[in-house]
């Protein structure tokens, strides 16, 4: 649990960008924290999700509706992300995954892509220098995706952040960028095939009689080579701004995930929306567990 004098309210101050500035003290903050703890205590009586995935949709629209500069929507989205991360940690969640950038997003207007890349580089470097948030949740950060598609400075910063948090044992925060589920599956297939080829080449070298028969690739083989290997499947997938598509996000891992599409835009996503999401999840949890157990029995 985080300290009792912590309050996160990025939506109150539009100028708040630094994760540090999200931590404020005061009587009001203490009261908010106490109420929040009570709500979490009640919620925790029921089944709590261990892994939530977010499709952070609506930053662009948020900026447009509020007639603010386009990049500011994404900046506020980042603040909402850090706040949600901390709330999820308070609620006992161990894994958070976010869809930060799709491979298809490269087709957008080049200036927008460039500003997004610059924002990502800026925020990654900020997290590298100022480790308050990371240390509070003992966060291990993963970047899932085709990192070689990123520009050099972003890729280097991402790899540095991954390396510096690799030993952390707390919250596992996975950022999908640039990512596509189908590309992840193909990547796993390529790895499995390469392994099989290497094994057979070694068998050739050993000159053992080999008639070329080997076992087919199984679902478990592919599971072990997904970016998400070692992480449990998401319990909830939330796509904000009311959109109902998964847009090629975690299609392999979301077999029994509760798909939710709340109306608020991502920068507006707050504690109350998270509470509502968990309440919805708790209502369908018995059905999902039953379906999952039945599916396991079939295997």
């Amino acid at each position: 649990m985080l300290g009792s004098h912590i309050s996160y309210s990025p939506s109150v101050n539009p100028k708040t960008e630094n994760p540090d500035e999200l931590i404020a003290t005061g009587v009001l903050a203490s009261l908010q924290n106490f109420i929040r703890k009570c709500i979490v205590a009640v919620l925790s009586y029921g089944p709590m999700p261990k892994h939530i995935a977010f499709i952070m949709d609506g930053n662009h629209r948020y900026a447009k509706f509020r007639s603010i500069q386009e990049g500011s929507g994404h900046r506020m989205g980042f603040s909402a992300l850090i706040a949600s991360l901390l709330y999820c940690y308070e609620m006992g969640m161990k894994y958070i995954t976010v869809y930060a950038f799709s491979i298809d997003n490269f087709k957008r207007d080049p200036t927008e892509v460039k500003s997004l890349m610059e924002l990502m580089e800026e925020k990654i470097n900020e997290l590298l220098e100022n480790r308050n948030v990371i240390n509070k949740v003992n966060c291990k950060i993963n970047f899932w995706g085709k990192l070689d598609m990123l520009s050099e400075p972003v890729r280097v910063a991402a790899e540095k952040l991954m390396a510096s948090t690799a030993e952390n044992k707390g919250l596992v925060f996975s950022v999908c960028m640039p990512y596509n589920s189908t590309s992840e599956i193909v990547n796993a297939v390529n790895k499995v095939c390469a392994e099989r080829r290497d094994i057979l080449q070694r068998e050739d070298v050993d000159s053992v009689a080999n008639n070329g028969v080997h076992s087919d690739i199984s679902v478990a083989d592919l599971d072990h080579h997904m970016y998400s290997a070692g992480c449990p499947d998401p319990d909830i997938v939330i796509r904000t701004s009311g959109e109902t598509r998964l847009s090629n996000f975690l299609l392999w891992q979301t077999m029994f995930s509760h798909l939710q599409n709340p109306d608020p835009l991502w920068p507006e996503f707050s504690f109350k929306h998270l509470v509502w999401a968990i309440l919805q999840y708790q209502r369908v949890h018995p059905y999902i567990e039953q379906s999952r157990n039945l599916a396991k029995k079939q295997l």
Partner: protein
Amino acid sequence: MQQMSRPSVIIKLILGLLWFIVHLAISLFSLWFDLIYSIECYLISFGLIPKYRKFQLDRLKHLAVVVDSREAKNVAKINQLLCWLSNVGVKYVCLYDIDGVLKKTFAPAMNGSRYGNSGKYLDVGANTKALTCCHKEMTIECISGSDGKDGIAKAASLLCSTCVNGNRNTCGNGEIVFTEADMSGALKAIGCGGPEPDLLLVYGPARCHLGFPAWRLRYTEIMQPGEATYAVQFSSSIAPNQ
């Protein structure tokens, strides 16, 4: 020791009671909203709400329906659903359930035999048949969990076999780089290729896709009837990719 644990037991009971009350309140509100939604659906289906009298289905080329396997055993309900869809004007529907109950139910009719209720089935493909029901023609495809992750694994095995079995020098010693197009081709080759639905309806208590084939789910709108006035939001909800 027992006196010290009593407060925590009481706190736990209070929390449990609050949790139960919250969920009871949510259930009551849900029932109320479901009632309003059902009334709205009836009004729409009787044509009493002007703006919903005519809607365009031309953008809905392919529809998919995910059914819970336990509910899939109710053949009469599935047939009724198919008739409704056919009446509404849907031309292609893909039925999915994780255990393959729908495949087994409709399999005897896949080879062109007649079906009892005035429908006529033509053999269109392994999992697909054309149904002439209620005077409109509709193509039905039945898939199951084995076409999902298992299908991808089989396609992967097929791709792998081009590299590993037979001529081992095909892929050389360099990095193996199959593409998404290669996977699509392999999926088609093993019979797991099929059109990507524009809309996927989930019939069940929870909005989960239950393992619907990933390659066909990338940009599909996923809706659960009861959450929205889906019958008339088909046309407005179908947006271009992403």
